[in-house]
């Protein structure tokens, strides 16, 4: 497959959608019109949020003492959020392991961001960390809904020998992953589609893995760089859902299939599924981060993590693509550690290891075909 170097705005510029809607086949026209509709709905939503920013902002629940404040809810296997309060900040541990895992994992994530990066919670203004466990039955997922974390119990509704997933609070990096979606929402606001979406996923995997490494006090060479370790049951042939060290090698199973992540731009996957492969192509920047952190050595959150956090906070924007992320992390490394420093060289080498040259040609190629593919018209 040919690599696609497009941010979303390039993939579907309005004039191209208009051209497809005017000259395309009936199916292409319909797809283009649907896309135009979605783009305008998004714009209206953003405009409303911008106009009433103060109101939306004041509705965010924040810690009273400007410190860490967690509230874990039990959704009681229903789909109504947040559910019933199960443990508040400072409460003794619950008898429910999922409640404690959500509490401890939220705390570990808060601590990494606060102590290492000086960030006070998701919004940097002491946003309360709300999480709900036991969401629905047989719910094999965890997600950030824009205001809180939500965790399912896996496929606990199936007989033991058929279960594929354990509860989603079981791995601390999943908790760090979900909370980082919140951080991204307040900072770079990476659009959850195509390359910017894969970067959104990438940032969540990076800081999810760093929370685990921080908790275990592991150096880059000691860490396993697995996302979701312990999540898959013993019925599955796999060690986790993603590997930053070896993307594509986390699992290979008769029921789940094989880990589809590429580790290099030459294997970039063009797809309309999964919001344009956001959980697939994230393997590429994930591996670049791993390579950079390994070359720098020591605790990965100290230098590589600081570079990535600073880039996420100050440099990346809604439609950033992989090339821009490579250039901006390289630039950030220079600002933090000096131009030509070992750290900056390691970042450059990390990106080179996945096929991206820092300062390289980001000129879009094959834009029209990519646009047709993106809107599902081919």
């Amino acid at each position, binding site marked *: 497959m040919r690599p696609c170097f497009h941010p979303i705005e390039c993939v579907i510029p309005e004039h191209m959608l208009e051209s497809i809607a005017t000259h395309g086949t009936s199916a292409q026209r*319909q797809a283009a019109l*649907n896309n135009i*509709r*979605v783009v305008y*709905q*998004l714009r209206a*939503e953003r405009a409303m949020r911008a106009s009433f920013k103060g109101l939306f902002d004041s509705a965010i629940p924040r810690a009273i003492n400007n410190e860490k404040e967690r509230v874990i809810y039990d959704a009681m296997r229903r*789909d109504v959020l947040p559910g019933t309060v199960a443990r508040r900040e400072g409460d003794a541990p619950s008898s429910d392991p999922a409640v404690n895992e959500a509490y401890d994992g939220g705390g570990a994530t808060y601590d990494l961001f606060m102590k290492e990066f000086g960030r006070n919670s998701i919004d940097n203004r002491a946003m309360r960390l709300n999480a709900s466990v036991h969401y629905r039955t*047989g719910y*094999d*997922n*965890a*997600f*950030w*809904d*824009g205001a809180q974390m939500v965790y399912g119990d896996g*496929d606990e509704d*199936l007989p033991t020998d*058929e279960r*594929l*997933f354990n509860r*989603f609070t079981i791995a601390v990096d*999943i908790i760090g*992953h*979900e909370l980082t*979606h919140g951080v991204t929402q307040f900072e770079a606001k990476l659009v*959850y*589609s195509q390359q910017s*979406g894969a970067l*959104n*996923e990438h940032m*969540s995997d990076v800081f999810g893995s760093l929370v685990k490494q921080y908790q275990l006090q592991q150096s880059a060479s000691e860490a396993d760089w697995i996302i*979701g370790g312990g*999540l898959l049951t013993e019925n599955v042939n796999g060690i986790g*859902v993603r590997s930053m060290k070896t993307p594509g090698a986390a699992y290979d199973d008769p*029921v*789940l*299939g094989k880990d*589809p992540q590429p580790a290099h731009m030459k294997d970039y996957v063009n797809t309309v*599924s*999964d*919001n344009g492969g*956001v*959980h*697939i192509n994230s393997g590429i920047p994930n591996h670049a981060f791993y390579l950079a952190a390994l070359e720098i050595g020591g605790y990965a959150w100290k230098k590589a993590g600081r570079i990535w956090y600073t880039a996420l906070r100050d440099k990346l924007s809604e439609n950033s693509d992989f090339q821009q992320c490579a250039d901006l992390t390289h630039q950030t490394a220079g600002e933090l550690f000096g131009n030509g420093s070992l750290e900056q060289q390691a970042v450059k080498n990390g990106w080179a290891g996945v096929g991206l040259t820092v300062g390289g040609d980001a000129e879009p190629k094959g834009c029209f075909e990519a646009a047709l593919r993106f809107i599902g018209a081919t």
Partner: protein
Amino acid sequence: MEVERIKFERTGGFANMRIAADLDVRDLSDEQAVTLKELLDELDFPELPAKLTSSEPIPDEFTYTITVEAEKWQHTVITGDTPEDEKMQELLGLLNGLARKQMRKQ
């Protein structure tokens, strides 16, 4: 509503494990087939917009693609995990269960 086949796919989610099934309605139990047809009727499925996801995607949310085939028509709908319509939620729950069952048999 007389339908023949239903193709169902779930993508995305934190683990991004794809669930997909191609269901022949004749292979379902009578009870399942009746429930399915009632839900499709109540949703007026052929008239639903192709995309029910209107707001910004939620990180790690599942995306579902449902294609219903009848003798004279077929229609595909893409939706997120938390559609407002309770009937759509019921349909997703039913198809999810049937798909997981079919995948385990293979």
